[in-house]
């Protein structure tokens, strides 16, 4: 088994693959990331052929690891990098029991965090990537981790997953080609390319930030915005959390404090420029 160990935020991973190339590619993508704390990786993610002969014959990579969902469809080996990323995600999505996990992107400026919740297609990852090139520090593009006691956002600055049109968009504003992973075409979500966050975001991956604003983006509509009521915020954040229920009473109490203290709104935007402009406007209004 070829292996690679890496730390992202508070999580130390051991990643395994019987094929060598995907691990080499992963290692290049994670250049500059630290190794696990005290050398102890506590999350194991791996890919494996679903049947022994699938290692060589029309090879396929199934997702596996400490935490797993049954019945996941294996991927063609050429998408192994995506399978590895999903295997790593699965360990966090299914296994995180210390911090509240919200499906969201987050960026930091001046010590304060902006949280952008949303599922795939909402545009949150692209917005986070763009903000990361415009003076903000990327904290996360997929998993926002919130401390239950302090409500601080803990960074999980993994390489950002760019899809389809977003790839060209980011290639246009990121000069350093080495920050990009390989282009993967024909994945279930179309074309995919990973973008490593800026060195600063990686170096400061242990620096948390207090959330100051929550904005729900919706890409592909005329510019518009509206407030989000506290009850709606509670519902939407908990729906987008993989571990709210498992964390029990403390999560309920933390979520009440979040909706009581952090302003929230939603906005629609037709393109990135408009989206970034709306974000800036909100930030000015609340002094972020």
């Amino acid at each position, binding site marked *: *088994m070829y292996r690679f160990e890496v730390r992202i935020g*508070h999580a*130390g991973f*051991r990643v*395994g693959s019987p094929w060598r190339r995907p691990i080499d590619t992963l290692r290049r993508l994670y250049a500059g990331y630290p190794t*696990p*704390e*005290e*050398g*102890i*990786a*506590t*999350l*194991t993610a*791996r890919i*494996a052929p679903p049947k022994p002969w699938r290692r060589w014959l029309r090879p396929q990579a199934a997702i*596996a*690891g*400490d*935490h797993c969902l049954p019945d996941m469809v294996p991927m063609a080996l050429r998408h192994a990098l995506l399978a590895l990323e999903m295997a790593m995600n699965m360990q966090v999505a299914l*296994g*995180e*029991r*210390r911090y509240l996990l919200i499906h969201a992107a987050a960026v930091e400026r001046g010590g304060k965090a902006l949280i952008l919740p949303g599922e795939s297609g909402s545009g949150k990852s692209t917005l986070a990537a763009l903000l990361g090139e415009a003076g903000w520090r990327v904290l996360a593009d997929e998993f926002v981790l919130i401390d239950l006691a302090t409500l601080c956002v803990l960074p999980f600055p993994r390489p950002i997953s760019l899809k389809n049109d977003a790839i060209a968009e980011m290639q246009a504003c990121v000069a350093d080609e080495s920050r990009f992973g390989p282009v993967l075409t024909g994945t279930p979500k179309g074309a995919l390319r990973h973008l490593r966050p800026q060195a600063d975001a990686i170096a400061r991956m242990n620096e948390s930030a207090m959330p100051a604003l929550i904005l729900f983006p919706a890409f592909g509509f005329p510019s518009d915005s509206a407030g989000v009521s506290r009850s709606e915020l509670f519902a939407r954040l908990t729906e987008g959390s993989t571990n709210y*229920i*498992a*964390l*029990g009473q403390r999560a309920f109490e933390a979520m009440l404090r979040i909706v009581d203290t952090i302003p929230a709104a939603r906005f629609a935007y037709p393109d990135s420029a408009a989206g970034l402009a709306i974000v800036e406007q909100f930030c000015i209004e609340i002094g972020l």
Partner: protein
Amino acid sequence: MKHALPLAHALADPISALSLGPGQWTELLAIARAERLDGSLAYRLADLPIPGPAAQALDGARAQAEFDRTRLLWEVEMARRALNAVDIAPILLKGSAFAFAGLPAAVGRSAGDLDILIAHDRLDAAEAALLDAGFEWATSDSYDQSYYRRWMHELPPLIHKDRGTMIDVHHSIVPLTARRTPDAGALIAASIDIAPGLAILSPADMIVHAACHLLADGDLSGGLRNLWDIDRLLRLFAAAPNFWRTLSERAALHHMREPVARALRLAERLFATPVELRLAGHDRMVDSLYSRRLLARDGWGRPTRPLSRLAFYARSHWIRMPPTMLARHLWTKARRKRMSLSRY
């Protein structure tokens, strides 16, 4: 790591974990999670000065175990409400019994489904009450339904339509078609009322059931956890006077002498459980095969020893069904699997 012995050691002798190196901690966690013993491990290591990252990972396992326990106790309560309404007081089995009774075996245990035992003549009433309370059949396949009803020791599994949780309603603890069948009436007669409308098996019967479940009722996958349950139960129950004599009598009554003896020997071998030697009997050569099967997990959490797995799988079915029935059953299963694959 090539097998799960380090996990057994860490559980039996927590101090031994202090000598683990960084890579070994990663492997131990992978194995513990694969065996669903990470919660139990977390509690065993709770007060020891283990490295920070490992401690944090085990904190997470403890949090999960607490959530599982809450959920399981709630399932017990909802099943109780449904069944008490038709005057059935279910006997809790396995994890739900441990959790409800606050037994050490419950500490850190990750939840399985809710297993209950009721009298055979109340099955229809129980089925109706549970369906009324929002449970649905997990399988609508008529072959599976008939298989379960006629030959297994339980109703087909039920899943709650809103909560998504599963309940297994048993009327015996080993299938009717097995060569040896425990005395369900005796289990029920000796059961202990633990709360209004709820009961658990007597301590000796609990051990008989656990041994059954480990050895006579399965292919040993997930067996290490069942064996750990037995270790925890025995250490508690052995403190009672005459426990070993009672266990011997109950094992004989239920025609389970051999599985109980084997379970005691395996617990002693892997967890250094104090057992009564006359009841446990001499070590058998085949005990090593069982032991290796229980420990068949590598440092990546993958099951190992495929040949022994096959042998145990076939063996477990042989125990449950006479050979001609077994052949017919496996044939039907294989045909159905081929049909369902062809849909993709």
